[in-house]
Every structure is written in structure tokens, then in C-alpha cells.
């Protein structure tokens, strides 16, 4: 650089340097202070409206759903669903078009994740209806501050709500003030479990051609299990003898589903928390899996495959046996394989059984359900919102959501079963995307429930029907363990998260252990990890929550 310019540079920055630095510091400080004060002011237009409910514009009638009584013709509501995959259409497809007509309601759907949801709260315009997925989050616990209670709404606008909502579910979701704020879908109560109307969603399946070729062997005891896997390995070198759901950083189907097959107890005999991961029966079966791994019957790839890879392997029948969690979600892939090789369909058989005589305790959705919907205190038309809840929870609404309109999309056959019309069936198989968009049955599920699925033989694809049959009578409610994790944001929650991660590593390490010594040492490491990470405190919290659950269930 030329000397003159250099001097110039020093001159103008040097001359003003001191001033410049002070200026810079001063400016920065000013900006930061201003920023902090802006922040303090933000959100003063907060999220607490008066929250008082106006009188209804029609006369209430406990025998009639209020949507039939409401004269309002032009209701509009915003509905936020905390999931990015939610289909945001309204009024364009068969299902929501009818809902729109019947309720005179126009809905604008918003989607997003937790951060998006918070921008609504922070900015003061909370959507009218909010659907989230976590029954025990801080948001759910703080519901009284931002949502109306369903009882208040029902009393003020729609007493018929009590007829369609399940009492057990409402009780389960009651907060400490005795009121319920959110209502879930797929909430299964004890009655539902007893009625045999819900199906199992886990299974141990084997390719039919392999099973028949080997003489339909049993795979119930550990010796039988290993022997059959070895035979498969010898006879079918192109297949992987044993597979399981993609782990995805967790434990896939290897922890809870396997424990359920073995009937590992949920709580101790006196009703307190039991660490199923250290159950001796379960660990002995993991040892068996370890032997299978050493025999080459489990591929290393199964531990790193992502969801896509697992689904692909299912659809080409790469695995001989699979421990499956979530058969409805995998049904499409089972169907693809079944279509390409009808003799080799995956069939559910009695897989690993308890060595101590426990019966299987298969899990399903519990009372907490899955999607939980609230009506916020900023709702423009709370009357219409609760009417929508009632409508969608009723048989009429649910049949609409699951099957559409009689005569148009379905008919009822001689046996009283609901059947899709031939055109619908054609559309479904040939142009599934259009089917999803224009018909949308089976997809609008914020208030869905499995009991409507039994009305039709088509509700589940053929490929998993046999697996569901197999599961009949083996379901066991896990209600007592629901929502027992430590509250988010507490030190115990963080410790619990670390423990869960450690367990995932431990489990895979156990299955891949080189010898018995390593197996034992890994198990011991896990136990010491528990002690080192507040396990006692976590257990105490869990016991407290189990006690609360018991009270709610009336046990």
C-alpha cells in the first residue's frame, strides 16, 4: 500500500480513534439498552383477555347438539395444529365441505412447530383453536391461563357435549382446578380395551414362504428362536433373518414393544415404578438377541438404517422375521410386498414369550390419546368452537370423517359393514394423491377414535388384518404409566433425557456385545449411570405421578 495512503489511514482512524472507540462503545451500549427496554415492553398486549363467556345467542338444550340450534351463518375460526404435515385445506374436500355446511363455519388452518406457536403467544394473537401433541408439556399444564375449560364452554353453549365426550377421558385430563381444558383423539379407555374394538399395533412377523418351508416352527422359547434364525440364515443367504424398526436415536421396537410381548410388569407388586429395562426376563431375551447377532442373524445396518431404509427393506421382503412396532403405519409397505409376492406375506406368529410365564401385555394408545385440542381464551366464537367439538365427536361427525357421505363415498352392505363405493376404491388405488386431497376420508382426525374403524372391513389394509387378529385378547392398558416423566425444564427432566440416550446406546451395545463379560459390564455401566444421574429423584417423581394416575383411574 502506498505510503501516502498509509499515512492517511493512520491519520483518520488514529485522529478519531479514541473518539471512535468511545463512540462505538457508547453506541453499542445505547442500542443494547434500547433493545432490552423494547423487549420489556413487548407483549404487554398480553395473552390474558377477560376470558368471560358471553351469553349464548340461542336457547340451550341438553338433548340437541347446539350446532343445530345456532342461527349464526358466518362463523370464522383460526385453527392452529402444531405439526408441519397437517393438511391445511378446508371446504374443498368431501369431509370438510360437509362440516363447513353443517356448522356454517369457515376454518383457516395454521401449522408450525413450538417456535411458531410461541410467536403467536408472544405477539398476542393466539389462534382460536389450538391442537398440540403433548399432554404433559408446560403448555398443557398452564392451560387455565390461556384456554377456556371445556366444562365452562359446555355449560354455557352446548350441554350435549357431555353426551359425546367420554367421561373417563374428561376426568383424566382434569387439571388441579377440577376442570378439563383439552380433548384428545384416539383416547382409549378401559371400556375400549375391554370391548375388543381396538387392535394391537405391534407384532412379531415372519415371511410366510420361509415359515412354511421350515415347517411352521415355533419361535417361543429362546432355544427355538435361535435355532430357527440359524436355519433361516443357512437356507436364505440373501435375507436378513431378524429385523426391527429403525432406531432413530431411540430404541425402536427393541425396548417397550419387546417388553410388552414378554409381559414384563408395568409396576411392582405394591404399585410403584419398575424399571422394565433391567427386568431379568427381558435381559435374558436381549442376551438371546446378542447370541443371534453373534451368529450373524442380525445385520449391523439395522442399527444405522433410518426410517426410509427400514420401510424399503419391508417392501421388498429383505427381512425374514421382523419385530414390528406400528403395523398400521407400516401397512402400506406390507401391502407393496404382499402384492409383489403373495406367497410370502408377512404373517404374525407367537414370537418371544416370557420365560417366567407372564402373558403378553401389548400396548396401544392410552387415555392421553395423541392430538389434544384446546379452545383459547382469545377465541372469537367460543360457542361455535365447542359446537365443532361436539359435532366431530359425535357418531355422525366421526362417520363422516372416516367414511364420508352415504351413497356418495360409501354404502352399507348386507352385513351392516361400511364399504367404499367402487369409484372411491378405484380413485384410492390409482390416484392416491387426488384421493387424499379431494376426498380426505380417514385423514381429518383431531377427534378420531379407533372404535369407528371396526365398522368397516376396509379400515385397515388386508396386509395387517392377520396381525391384528393375532393381537386380539393380548392388549393391556398402560394407563398407569402415562404422563409420568419429570416435568420439562427441571433438572430431573434433563437427567432423564440423558438416561434415555444412555439406554439407547446401552441396548445396542448389549446386542452387539462380543462376549458375556462385555455384556455384563455394559449392564453394570448402565446401572451406575442411573445412580450417577439422580435416578432416585426421578423414581420418586414417577411414583408421585403414578399415584395421581391411580386416583384418576379410581384404582
Amino acid at each position: 500500500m502506498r505510503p501516502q495512503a498509509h499515512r492517511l489511514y493512520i491519520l483518520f482512524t488514529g485522529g478519531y480513534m479514541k473518539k471512535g472507540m468511545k463512540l462505538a462503545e457508547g453506541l453499542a451500549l445505547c442500542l443494547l439498552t434500547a433493545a432490552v427496554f423494547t423487549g420489556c415492553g413487548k407483549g404487554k398486549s398480553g395473552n390474558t383477555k377477560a376470558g368471560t363467556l358471553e351469553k349464548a345467542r340461542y336457547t340451550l338444550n341438553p338433548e340437541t347438539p347446539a350446532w343445530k340450534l345456532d342461527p349464526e351463518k358466518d362463523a370464522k375460526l383460526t385453527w392452529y395444529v402444531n405439526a408441519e404435515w397437517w393438511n391445511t385445506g378446508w371446504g374443498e374436500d368431501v369431509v370438510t365441505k360437509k362440516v363447513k355446511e353443517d356448522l356454517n363455519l369457515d376454518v383457516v388452518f395454521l401449522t408450525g412447530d413450538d417456535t411458531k406457536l410461541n410467536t403467536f403467544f408472544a405477539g398476542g394473537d393466539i389462534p382460536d383453536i389450538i391442537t398440540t401433541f403433548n399432554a404433559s408439556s408446560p403448555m398443557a399444564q398452564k392451560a387455565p391461563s390461556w384456554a377456556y375449560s371445556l366444562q365452562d364452554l359446555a355449560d354455557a353453549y352446548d350441554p350435549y357435549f357431555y353426551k359425546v365426550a367420554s367421561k373417563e377421558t374428561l376426568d383424566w385430563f382434569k387439571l388441579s382446578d377440577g376442570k378439563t381444558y383439552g380433548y384428545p383423539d384416539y383416547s382409549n379407555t378401559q371400556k375400549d380395551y375391554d370391548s375388543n374394538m381396538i387392535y394391537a399395533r405391534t407384532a412379531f412377523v415372519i415371511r410366510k414362504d420361509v415359515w412354511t418351508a421350515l415347517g411352521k416352527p415355533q419361535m417361543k422359547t429362546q432355544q427355538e428362536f435361535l435355532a430357527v434364525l440359524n436355519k433361516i440364515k443357512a437356507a436364505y443367504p440373501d435375507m436378513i433373518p431378524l429385523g426391527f424398526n429403525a432406531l432413530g436415536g431411540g430404541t425402536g421396537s427393541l425396548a417397550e414393544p419387546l417388553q410388552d410381548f414378554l409381559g414384563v410388569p408395568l409396576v411392582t407388586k405394591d404399585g410403584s415404578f419398575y424399571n422394565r429395562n433391567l427386568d431379568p426376563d427381558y435381559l435374558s431375551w436381549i442376551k438371546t438377541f446378542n447370541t443371534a447377532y453373534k451368529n450373524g442373524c442380525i445385520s449391523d445396518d439395522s442399527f444405522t438404517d433410518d426410517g426410509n431404509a427400514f420401510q424399503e427393506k419391508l417392501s421388498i421382503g429383505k427381512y425374514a422375521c421382523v419385530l414390528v412396532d406400528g403395523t398400521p403405519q407400516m401397512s402400506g409397505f406390507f401391502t407393496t410386498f404382499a402384492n409383489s409376492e403373495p406367497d410370502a406375506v408377512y404373517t404374525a406368529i407367537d414370537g418371544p414369550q416370557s420365560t417366567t410365564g407372564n402373558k403378553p401385555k401389548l400396548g396401544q394408545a392410552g387415555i392421553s390419546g395423541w392430538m389434544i385440542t384446546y379452545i383459547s381464551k382469545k377465541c372469537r366464537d367460543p360457542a361455535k368452537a365447542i359446537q365443532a367439538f361436539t359435532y366431530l365427536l359425535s357418531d355422525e361427525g366421526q362417520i363422516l370423517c372416516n367414511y364420508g357421505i352415504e351413497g356418495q363415498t360409501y354404502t352399507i352392505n348386507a352385513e351392516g359393514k361400511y364399504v367404499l363405493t367402487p369409484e372411491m376404491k378405484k380413485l384410492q388405488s390409482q390416484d392416491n394423491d387426488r384421493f387424499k386431497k379431494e376426498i380426505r376420508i380417514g385423514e381429518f382426525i383431531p377427534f378420531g377414535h379407533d372404535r369407528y374403524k371396526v365398522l368397516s372391513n376396509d379400515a385397515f389394509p388386508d396386509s395387517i388384518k392377520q396381525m391384528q387378529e393375532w393381537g386380539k385378547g393380548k392388549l393391556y392398558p398402560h394407563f398407569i404409566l402415562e404422563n409420568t416423566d419429570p416435568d420439562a425444564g427441571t433438572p430431573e427432566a434433563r437427567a432423564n433425557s440423558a438416561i434415555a440416550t444412555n439406554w439407547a446406546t446401552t441396548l445396542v451395545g448389549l446386542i452387539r456385545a462380543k462376549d458375556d463379560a462385555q455384556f455384563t459390564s455394559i449392564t453394570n455401566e448402565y446401572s451406575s449411570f442411573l445412580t450417577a444421574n439422580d435416578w432416585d429423584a426421578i423414581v420418586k417423581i414417577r411414583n408421585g405421578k403414578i399415584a395421581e394416575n391411580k386416583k384418576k383411574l379410581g384404582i
Partner: protein
Amino acid sequence: MTKKIKENKTFSYINYSLIILFTLAIIIPLLNIVSSSFAGSKALAEENFIFFPSEWSLDNYRAVLNDTSMWSAFCVSVLKTVLGVITHVFFCSMVAYGLSKRYLLGRKVYTILGIITLFFSGGMIPTYLLMKDLHLLNNFWVYIIPQLFSYYDVIILMNFFRQLPDSLEEAAIIDGAGAWRILLTIIMPLSKPALATIALFNGVFQWNDFMTAKLYITTKRTLYPLQMKLYEIIVQQQAATMNNIGNFVVQTTSKGIQLATIVVTTVPILVIYPLLQKHFVSGMMLGSVKE
């Protein structure tokens, strides 16, 4: 002399062979990805092919391109990219020119202010609230206005401008030109490589960006750019596996669709880049000033 020619030839040979090696290392996996996007779902699962799946299929592309609203999204993408890049390049050049003068008063302050913005950010929530207050939500200008300025790009341009000889400006000043005139008629034409680079960076960003739409376009879905629509397709593919609704929905391999998505979005860039490439040729300055 022959030694020099031989040395140059050896250099060329080594250079060419190394380049071919590196390029192969890049291109082989890429071809695998492209052929995977054309593969039938069965072949994709078999995973044993490198270039030639046993089964070719356009299913993935059909799923991606079938949507008619894809074309309006395409127009939105083109518009935001073109408009965004032009405004961004001009805005940054303007600021960079001022900052390139080391005698600019307050430069140290400006520099510190700029550096802080590279590292500290309030996060998504306050930015969302700001956009709301500025009425940029559900508004096409949310793609343009927040992208006008990037301190990193300004630094690059600044350094580039500084490399230009002062004599050029001095000549213009003698002719009576003002700062704006100098910027537009002298500095920018001579900085084509740098401007092209900034344009390319920003253009690629605008083309690929879907976060802006995801965060700030909530109700007016006609403003979705192409990438946002493709993102929706991928995410909604996963919806089916999320729900208990395996009944009425048929699965296509979402991986195949993701790959097709990538190919579809990258092809336009492949088409545009060669047009920009001529600006990366050296020798821009030749003949402008004799030192």
C-alpha cells in the same frame, strides 16, 4: 527454454489428472443420487446399484410435478430471486463503496456494528414480531426487504473495491464526477467478478430459501415459492406414516421424492450459472488504466 516448456507440460498433466480425480470423487456419488431419483421404489430399496437401477420410473417426478400450483410457485421463486438479487447487489455495493474508503468518518463504529450482527441474533421469535410490526407478514416484500443487506457480502465487495487502483477514481474526479457517478460507471463495471459472486450467493439463497415462507407466510399460500411447496410435499409424505391411517393412503418412497425434489430445484441453477460464468474470466482491467 525446453526445460521450462517441459515443466509447464508436467504441471498441466498433473493438474489435469488431479482435477479429474477430484471431479470423479464428486460426480460418482452425485450420479448415484440422480439415478436414484429415477429409480423405481423396488430398485431403490435393493441399494446395490451405483448408476443403473434395474427399474427406471418417473413416479417420483410425477408426484413432485403433478401439482398445478407448482407453476405459480415457480413464478414466485423466479420473481423473488431476480428482484431480490438485483436490489441486494445494488444496496450492498452502495454501502461497500462508502465503507471501502478508509478515511470515512465513523468507519470503526460501522465496522463494529456490522461484526456484531454477524454473531448475535435475537432469534426467530423477536424477528417474527418485528416482521409483524413492519406489516411484512403474508406479504411478498418479506422476501426482498430483509435480504437487502448482508454484512458479509459488504466486506467482500469492500475488499474488492479497495483493490481497484485509485488512479481510476482520480481520473474521474478530474472530469468532475460525483461519488454516485463513480460507483455506477466505473467501480461496478470493473468489479464484475465480485458482483457476480455476490449475485450468485444471494441468488442461490433466494432460490433455495423456504424458511422465510415457512415462518412469515401463514395464510396467503399463493406466495409460497417453489422450495416451500416441495418441502410441503416431503413433509406431508411423512404424514401418512405418522398417523394411524395406513388404510387409505398409499406410500411412495419418500426418499425417492426427496431426491427428485433436489434434482428439480437444481436444474434451473445449472442452466443459469453458465450465463454468469463469463464474468469470472480474468482480464477485466486490461487497458483501462496505464500505470
